[in-house]
């Protein structure tokens, strides 16, 4: 039975080697096709997120520029100036956060440690940004809505009136909440699934840690026992020799 098992193991190694040779003969990478591969675009999760954030940051810059233009046309309108200034500040802050997220995603690609460390790094990043990510994207929707409303009022009525009652404020605030909720509903599942998958891989890596710790402590215990037994045997022999010498 044991011999059979060893033969199977040997056969597995031989087959693996055979497969390796067959693969090497069939699929050769040369410098030319490797260069072509390096010029393609990646569809990997972190890279696609990076692209989305970059595109959104550009969109925000366009919106900020729109607020500057609308302010320039309404220099006497304090409401438009104040609203634009607030939106420009919010937009700039969001762009800054997007840059931090892009840097964070970029760091995920700097592979230095082992796979376990890398998984922990990925989980940590996605967990800590699970709310920030939809929020910065939602701000674009909000800014777009404000800029669109101001422009529409400016074109249709030629005068942009300030918010006069509480109702307008509530509607605006609700829109911010709805845009955040929308972005959250769209992006949260992606992050959740990603974190779940990364966690399952990490758990899989750590699966036998308890068993190995138990084996470790067992080995230490056995080592201690062996040392103690050796000391006792040596001591016993010494005492025995001493007794024999004393008798003689």
């Amino acid at each position, binding site marked *: 039975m044991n011999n059979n*098992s060893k033969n*199977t*193991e040997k*056969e*597995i*190694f031989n*087959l*693996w080697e*055979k*497969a*390796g040779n*067959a*693969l*090497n*003969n*069939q*699929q*050769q*990478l*040369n*410098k030319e096709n*490797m*260069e072509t*591969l*390096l010029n*393609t675009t*990646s*569809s*990997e*999760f972190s890279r696609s997120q990076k692209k989305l954030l970059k595109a959104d940051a550009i969109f925000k810059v366009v919106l900020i520029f729109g607020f500057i233009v609308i302010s320039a046309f309404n220099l006497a309108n304090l409401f438009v100036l104040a609203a634009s200034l607030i939106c420009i500040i919010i937009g700039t802050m969001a762009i800054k956060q997007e840059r931090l997220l892009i840097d964070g995603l970029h760091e995920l*690609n*700097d*592979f*230095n*440690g*082992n*796979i*376990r*460390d*890398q998984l922990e790094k*990925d989980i940590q990043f996605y967990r800590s940004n699970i709310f920030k990510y939809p929020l910065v994207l939602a701000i674009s929707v909000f800014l777009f809505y404000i800029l669109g409303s101001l422009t529409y009022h400016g074109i249709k009525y030629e005068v942009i009136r300030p918010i006069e009652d509480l109702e307008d404020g509530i509607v605006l605030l609700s829109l911010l909440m709805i845009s955040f909720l929308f972005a959250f509903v769209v992006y949260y599942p992606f992050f959740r699934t990603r974190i779940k998958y*990364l966690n399952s*891989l990490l758990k*899989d*890596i*750590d*699966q*036998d*840690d308890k*068993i*190995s*710790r138990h*084996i*470790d402590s067992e080995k230490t215990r056995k080592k201690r026992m062996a040392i103690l037994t050796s000391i006792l045997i040596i001591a016993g022999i010494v005492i025995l020799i001493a007794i024999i010498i004393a008798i003689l």
Partner: protein
Amino acid sequence: MDQENKMKEKFLNLVEMHQGIIHKILSVYTYNVEDREDLLQEIMLQLWKSFPGFREKAAFSTWMYKVALNTALLHKRKKMKEKYTVEALIENRAQQIGLSKDDNTISLYMAIDRLGPIDKAIALLYLEQKSYQEIENILGMKKNNIGVRISRIKDKLKKIFEYEQQL
């Protein structure tokens, strides 16, 4: 620019020399040509992106295993293995490796296919006869843990392989 060209040249030479690692990882983690091409592209891009962080002191092959395996583990497959019939899987495997469908190597791959993603990585490194130390460096698992896992994977592989051969 010249510096970058030099670095690229060095990178391409090293990858060309160690390309067997990529082919083996692709053969274990993909089930069709389309996925294979996708993962190959991702691995190449990730290797190139991470290359500035590669420390000369470390063995290039160990570093390559780390990056390529990590990419394979995180790669989103277009079609999951479960969606294939056994016949289609055998057909794809034979085509991918370039051997006949009746070759015993296909049975070995069918056995590896039944392992989880991390176990596949351990099996691959074990079959590549990597030391426990190297496996620890690549995966970040403790040596004793590796021993336990390898012995379990070995048993599993043997059983499934023997069963596959009987079919």
